[in-house]
């Protein structure tokens, strides 16, 4: 779904995905939002998706990896609470681009922006075709998040995904939400509950003060 005027309401979290051309950024987001792997046109400039998670609205921004859009990418990074740095497991150059080209763009993002490194096209790995080892990618992911509160990170922010099979895609986004939209225990329950009754999730009053929701559920669950 592309955003329409109705989506002008503010999102609670902005997630941006960066990475070289054709590493599979759009496919990854498409897999997550639509649940399928399908052909699509190359991204022009940027694209935008809204996702409901519990009572939160998450804006997911897809960017074009093309060099010619570099100036815009940094603009689209502004206010991002989480960034997905995507590279192709089968192409080392796409991994190098992450720190050479894309990491600097995140100066515009929030200071405590969570940076999740994602190796894509896991399904295409053949014996010997892997060009980036898990270890180095994991180390990289650790290093670039060293400014964050390590206690809140229960694992290295590194995932290897396949948009074709769906492997690790949802897990990766859930990891971001768990980190960026922390829920108290009982809020978690209520987010599950609203998920189940899907009809009730479709509208969210963003004008409502954010604190009121957990408070209310708290007293209900006590």
């Amino acid at each position, binding site marked *: 779904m592309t955003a*329409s005027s109705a989506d002008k309401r503010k999102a609670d979290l902005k997630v941006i995905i960066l990475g070289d051309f054709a590493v599979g950024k759009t496919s990854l987001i498409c897999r997550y939002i639509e649940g399928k792997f399908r052909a699509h046109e190359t991204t022009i400039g940027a694209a935008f998706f809204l996702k409901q998670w519990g009572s939160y609205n998450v804006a997911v921004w897809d960017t074009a990896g093309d060099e010619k859009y570099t100036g815009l990418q940094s603009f689209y990074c502004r206010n991002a609470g989480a960034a997905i740095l995507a590279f192709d497991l089968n192409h080392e150059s796409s991994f190098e681009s992450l720190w050479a080209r894309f990491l600097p763009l995140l100066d515009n993002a929030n200071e405590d922006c969570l940076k999740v490194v994602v190796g894509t096209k896991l399904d295409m790995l053949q014996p010997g075709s892997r060009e980036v080892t898990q270890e180095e990618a994991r180390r990289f992911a650790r290093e670039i998040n060293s400014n964050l509160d390590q206690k809140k990170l229960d694992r290295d922010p590194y995932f290897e995904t396949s948009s074709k099979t769906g492997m690790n895609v949802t897990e990766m986004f859930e990891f971001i939400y768990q980190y960026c939209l922390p829920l108290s225990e009982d809020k978690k329950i209520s987010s599950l509950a609203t998920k189940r009754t899907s009809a009730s999730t479709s509208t969210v009053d963003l004008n409502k003060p954010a604190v009121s929701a957990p408070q209310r559920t708290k007293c209900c669950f006590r």
Partner: protein
Amino acid sequence: MSIKAFELVPAIERLKLMSDKARTQIECIDVCGKNLYIGTNDCFVVHYILEGRPTQAGRLAFHSEKQGHKYLALKKPIDQLKAASALNRILVLCDHTLTLLNMMDLEPVMSGAKVKGVTYFCLNDNPVRGNPFSVEVCVALKKKQIQVYTITEDRIIHVKDVSIPEQANQIGIDGHFICAALASQYCMVNFETGQIQDLFPYDSESTKPVVKRISKEEFLLSGPNALGMFVTSEGISQRPPMQWSDNLLGVSYVHPYIVSLNDEFITVHSILDQQQKQAIPFQGGSTIGDFDGRVFISSAKEIYALVPVAWEKQVQALLADKRVQEALDLAKNANHAGLSKDKFLKIYRRFQQQAAFIEFSQQNFDEAKELFKEGKVDVRELISLYPGLMPSSSNFTRSIPVLHEIADINNLSKDNDEMKKDYKRFLRNYLEEIKGTTDGHGFKQVIDTALLKLYAEINWPELIPLIAVDTGCDLKDSVEWLEKYERYHALGLLFKYHGENDKAMQIWARLVNGEIKDELFPGLQFVVEFLSNINDPELVWKYIDWALEKDQELSVKIFTERPSNEPPTERFRPETVIDYLHRFPKAVIAYLEYLIFQKKLEKEKYHTHLAVLYLDSVLQLMKNNNVKKEHLDNARSKLRHMLQLSNMYRVQLILGKVKEQDMHAECAILYGKLEEHDKAMRILVHKLKDYVAAENYCFVNSQGKDPTYRKRLFHILLGVYLDPNNERKDLLVTPAVELLNRNVTEFDTAKVLQLLPENWSVQLVKQFLSQTVRKSMNFQRTVRIERMIARGENLWVKEACIAMQKSPVQMNDDKMCAVCNRAFSDPTFVRYPNGVITHVHCAKNKHVCPVTGKLFSICSKNS
């Protein structure tokens, strides 16, 4: 992806404008109400009155009339002009100088107010200082500075300066945010705080900067690679970018469309999905602007208006292209000016209805369903697409103008059976969903009839509940349909629902007889239930023979399971029924059982009858040698149960027959009934040697009688055991002792001691004796305790009484009754514990104070 959102209409043509000077060109324009101003490249400001009038063809044509012109004598082009009707002024930028002209006569203001060194200016549509007699203007200067001014009729008042890193080419303002295109990048400036936020870079070589205010705190900028970028005053984007074509010249916005101009095309994008919707070839365009929602475009010599095609027409066109989502999005977001909410909703609903049928015709059933519901489509419009499903009595005709071009579903599915099935499944689901909701309101008959037909066709189990419960099905139509598809059980139910029970029974009888078949028919059971519940003795008697012949035990329920609220009738009197059932022995038994055990009728005739029937069946079984013992036992225990339970049958009659057959257990019961307990127990002890039964006999036969009766029975039994004339009496010592030990309380110890034979050792009856002693000790002590408690209570009450009477009550003539307020004439009176004094007859309740309502409990001391 195209749509006709606008039409290009000439507003001012070439000749009329510049007949005199060939090299004069339009540099900029502004429109304010009917006034149109043109700034030329040779320093003229020209004023026209422009009016749009509808032509006969329903289109818009413009008429213009020149009002005057003014030469500013600077020999430079007029770069920008902008009318400020509130001030009756035009703001003109020429030769880097911003000046004010009178809107009507185009004369410069007397004060000569001006700002120099200006490269660009814009008005604040959302001014910070909301004075209606001033406008807020932002200017970009040749030096690296932006300034904000407030302009009144003849003054230009400086408000603020903001320094910027580079010279600004283009600016837009909203509130206190200025979005500026600098030489190499865009930035957002807060002129109150002076804060500058970089947005993104662009290449001024290849990209003409554009800053267009879209709405409150949102701007549209031309980014690199011809991207239209949305930016909020916070410096972020909340919409994805838009792809324009190269060589962009300018941008306008009329909700929901972004109109852009380049050297070859006028291009229309929707702000809703950022997609291109229309492109109009247009060569030589130079400026574009929206003025109070009207878009004008100029070339060097001509001016055109972009007249919006009415949104209804656009939506209709989209629907004709089957672009449902776009059509509805547009309808929702179009400018509904001049429409009341109700009116709009009516129009919108009609679009939804059309959309519903489009989705329907494309088998997009989920979407169709939502739209049918939301659009509140008359359900008959839908049902009438299915041949034969409307009730034949209906005279419905489709609405005009038509909502769709569909003939019927056969036509849609082109004889593809799968698709036809899908269509029918859709209708079934849809009708089931709206049935009983407000959506289905008023169409019960239509909906139920259609459902019945759909169900009947595929033999759907829901058919039965549909008919059985509050159905609105049209009878004639449905009968035909059900017969056609051989749904006989449903047909029966339908007749039943419409009160035609005889017809219903005919069908069910044929089903039971196997003349016709229907899987959904539950069988005879169902017919029996039907007959037992029906308040129509005629019908019952008509079919009862048939039913009993099929199955006696089942069919007798027609008599025994009549509705509890059925008034008693002559036709179902027990005598009548019993007489009738004569031919059906199993049915008679079941019926008598019903009368005796369920209805608890205490009529000797029924009880004796049943006992005799039970006995007969036992005798029958006994006569037959190769009968399983089990069967016989069963029959006998049934008989015994009845003999024991009932007190109504003629004992002697049964006893006579039973004795002949040596049926001892039955005999014992019957003697019990005759209160010949000694005989009964002798049978139990001597004949049956069943000591447990004998003991049990004492309990059973003393039930509901006073305890001495039971004692008597126990003593009789003990007597039987200890009968000195019995030669086998030694064998009975053990049961006798056990009897004593188990039932100590049932015996009178003194009598027992007299009865016991002398030769018995104490050891033998030790247990009995010690229990007896304990029992009487316990009794004695309990009585003593009770006595002492009673005495204590008595003392206590006495004390309370004394306490209450302790204080004197003085009575004199002044004392009045607290209730009736009259004097006391008698010496007697009532005093409540709280001191209230009344007549004796005024004290209605001695526990409640008549004045205060206070409650005095009997043991108030405790509380």
